[in-house]
């Protein structure tokens, strides 16, 4: 008897709920949701103004510029060797990688090439900054989904990598180590062996993340099929790096344009994923860290002897001309377009940073997604604010 009444009651409630759902849907009115500029999901100070219809985003507008430092103007009143200190601060999590494209562009204009040992060590540090950068992404992605533990693992293991970078360059975050024609210093003694140890730690971190986070059911449901970017749209917006490879674009500047690096001599693989969703972007970056550790091991074994500096005039004047050099940075394609008039300072430097293009897709990408997915999508696009605003 009681069971029947309970069922009736439940039916009544269900009918009511269905009614109210209909009513709610009919009555929704637009709402403006402001995220940031201090929102933790934005890795800094990106502000997102989203127009909502219920839980769904109708239109989203990212507002950058809270961290604009005007590097393109500042480069015009600095000499070439001074500029590396500036460009260091664009993507602060992988700072050494920022210096390299600028140095390579300057070297191309001057017609000099770094000696082999410098190229090997350059590649080594370039990959180390990628590892240091992407480890943080792997941990941070968990935080955005409510899993805090991976972030602690990430910060712990990144420190080993940063220690190694610091041992060579003297700076954890801003090495300012690359020079036109080579490198500032040679490697310290015993460093290579320790680096290989650290790479073992990074590999076990990757395994941990895979088991702890990527294979978790919650992770899959929150990321699979969310924020899908087709390859053609990705190209139109100039998405690069892991974001492009996660959309199935088989393009990696380390393989396709390895000037000034030693990538052709290493055994590694470019990973792509056909799905283009948040999960794919995470997966590709995870594989990329593993490939980088493999590369670093090989470089540690193969780095040749010799000088680390080419013959460079004491006062660096870059001959008149223009050059555009891009490299595969942790965040994607980073390029420096240098216009020189043969002076001590460049005439114009255009900094093509990866995050600027990667984030410019968000108005398109966030249209129609649900509010909680904004956070995972932004996290999976992975940008650094300094890299957007420059």
């Amino acid at each position, binding site marked *: 008897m009681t069971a029947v009444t309970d069922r009736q009651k439940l039916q009544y409630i269900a009918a009511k709920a269905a009614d109210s759902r209909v009513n709610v849907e009919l009555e929704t009115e637009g709402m403006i949701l402001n995220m940031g500029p201090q929102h933790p999901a934005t890795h800094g100070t990106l502000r997102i103004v989203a127009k909502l219809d219920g839980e769904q985003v109708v239109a989203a507008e990212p507002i950058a510029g809270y961290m604009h430092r005007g590097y393109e103007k500042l480069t015009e009143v600095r000499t070439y060797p001074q500029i590396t200190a500036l460009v260091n601060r664009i993507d602060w999590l992988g700072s050494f990688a920022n210096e390299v494209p600028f140095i390579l562009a300057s070297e191309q204009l001057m017609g000099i090439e770094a000696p082999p040992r410098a190229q090997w060590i350059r590649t080594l540090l370039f990959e180390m900054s990628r590892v240091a950068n992407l480890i943080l992404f792997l941990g941070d992605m968990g935080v955005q989904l409510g899993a805090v533990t991976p972030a602690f693992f990430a910060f712990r293991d990144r420190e080993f990598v940063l220690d190694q970078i610091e041992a060579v360059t003297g700076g954890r975050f801003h090495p300012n180590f690359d020079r036109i024609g080579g490198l500032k210093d040679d490697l310290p003694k015993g460093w290579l062996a320790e680096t290989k140890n650290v790479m073992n730690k990074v590999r076990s971190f990757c395994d941990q993340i895979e088991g702890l986070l990527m294979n978790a059911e919650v992770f899959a449901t929150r990321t699979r099929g969310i924020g899908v970017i087709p390859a053609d749209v990705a*190209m139109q917006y*100039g998405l690069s790096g892991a974001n492009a490879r996660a959309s199935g674009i088989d393009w990696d500047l380390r393989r396709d344009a390895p000037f000034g690096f030693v990538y052709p001599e290493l055994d590694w693989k470019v990973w792509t994923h056909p799905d283009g969703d948040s999960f794919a972007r995470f997966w590709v970056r995870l594989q990329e860290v593993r490939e980088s550790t493999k590369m670093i091991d090989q470089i540690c074994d193969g780095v040749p002897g010799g000088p680390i500096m080419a013959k460079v*005039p004491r006062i660096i004047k870059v001959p008149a001309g223009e050059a555009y050099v*891009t490299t595969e940075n942790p965040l994607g394609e980073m390029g420096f*377009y240098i216009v020189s008039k043969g002076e001590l300072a460049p005439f114009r430097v255009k900094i093509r940073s990866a995050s600027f293009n990667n984030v410019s897709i968000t108005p398109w990408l966030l249209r129609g997604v649900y509010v909680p997915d904004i956070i995972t999508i932004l996290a999976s696009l992975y940008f650094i604010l300094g890299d957007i605003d420059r």
Partner: protein
Amino acid sequence: MSEQSDNAEEKLDAAATAAEPETVAEPVVAEPVVAEPVVAEPEGPKDEAREELLRRFIEALGDGVLDSHIEVDKDLWIRVSADAWFDAGEFARNQLQARYFGFLSAIDWMPSPFGRSMDSEVDRLLEASADEVENSAAEGSAVAGLEHGFAGGDTRFQVFARVAHVGDQGKNFGLTLKVDVPDDTLALSTWTKIYAGSDWHERETHEMFGIDFTGHPALRNMYLPTGFEGHPLRKDFPLLARQVKPWPGIVDVEQMPSNEPEESSPEESSPEESSPEESSTEESSTEESSTEQSSTEGADT
């Protein structure tokens, strides 16, 4: 890895080296004719892949292509007229399959009216001894004396964009398109209908250079406050920090605060500075790095 690395540039390399024997062989066959070989090899190595791109561009746009420049095995620049700007983008994307949008920005070719006034006295002395050519250029810094870069130019502002064909191993290429922005209107047609990603880049160019893109959905500022006056990346926009405080300079002559930097610098430092300048051919990385160190410290102030 080395087997896989048949990238575009290497292929172009191979194309260039393959082209060379032909041009060398030609004079041997046609030896009695003096005029032909001279015409045949004016620029040494050739870059066939990029020349082919250029040829297709000229075919499609006709008079729209004003000038071009090829750095062999490195890069290609094509300058088009303002009227052909939209067509050039469309052609690059749809016909050449350069579907990847790199960036879009502008250059202000006017020499800075502030010259090197931002630098300290020491720097200017060094500059004078190191380069006389520059001084003469700075004197004639009228707008008429614009010196353009690769592929030339006629106007003060040039917009340039980078597009590329990617994801196609071995056939990847990139090219830089330049366009003269008419001085009177400072307007171009937008590329947002061709490359959606040019949206933000055009907004940035608009606020930094004051160039209009007709047809752009909303040319709001990216970085600056809405009411900001002026266009910071123009050469006549002063960098205030450098106007009020001289840059410590490229030379390691920063004095201690107690040493009255104002009075002592010009006379004393000129003989000091001329001596390392003379021996500039003999260089060492340690000297270089010490200079670097001091300048880095200056950057943080």
